[in-house]
């Protein structure tokens, strides 16, 4: 952990009813960031959103045999960066293969990863020793 940073390590049941709790915690943190020069409420919405999207996917795709009953989320703020890491235990996917949605085809789904990529400065999805991790980084200037 970075000096004088904020670090949250969160485990919640893998149920969609906890999306709002995680989103709200993300908003609280965003509102507390003192180094941010942009609009605080916009940042709060964005953090709420990327947490919600990432956790939804971890619930949907990340737990095929119900092996894990929790979703594990790490939020870390150091001087200039906000890190969010979400772990899952599914078969994983190649995030670079996910295309930008076809804006003319009216699909019900397929906008989550697009939104995450649009709002964060760096997004990676990696295999881990045990499962996978989605890492999202936002620069705070």
């Amino acid at each position: 952990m970075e000096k004088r940073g904020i670090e949250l390590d969160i485990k919640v049941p893998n149920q969609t009813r906890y999306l709002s709790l995680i989103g709200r915690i993300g908003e609280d943190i965003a509102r507390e960031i003192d180094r941010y020069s942009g609009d605080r409420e916009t940042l709060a919405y964005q953090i709420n959103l990327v947490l919600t999207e990432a956790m939804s996917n971890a619930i949907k795709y990340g737990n095929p045999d119900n092996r894990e009953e929790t979703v594990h989320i790490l939020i870390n703020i150091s001087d200039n960066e906000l890190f969010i890491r979400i772990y899952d235990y599914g078969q994983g996917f190649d995030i670079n293969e996910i295309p930008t949605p076809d804006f003319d085809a009216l699909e019900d789904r397929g906008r989550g990863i697009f939104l995450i990529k649009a709002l964060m400065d760096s997004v990676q999805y990696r295999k881990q020793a045990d499962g996978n991790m989605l890492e999202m980084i936002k620069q705070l200037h």
Partner: protein
Amino acid sequence: MNLNSEIITGNVVIHVKEERLDAHNSAELKLEFQKLFASGSQNLLVDLKEVRFIDSSGLGALVSGFKNATTSHGSLRLASLQPQVKSMFELTRLHRVFEIYQTVAEALEK
């Protein structure tokens, strides 16, 4: 999912009484649209005034309803989007798909 519906001048106005439209409650909204069109409703107007937050699955539920509307030769319009919610429509270009009104009253005048 908390919803209030009323019929005003031929429109079914659906007031969404939730702060969040997300993967927890959007499937229910989607189903609601399906039921309404299946039971003969034609013109839906969704009042999003109280919705402070929408995610991709919330957008997806509205898109699904929009497609139901097209199939039923009806319409699904939106009113009273909060600024942050509006910006999600812009980011996903869905503001070009939906007819979006400042208020329910304005939508009903059209």
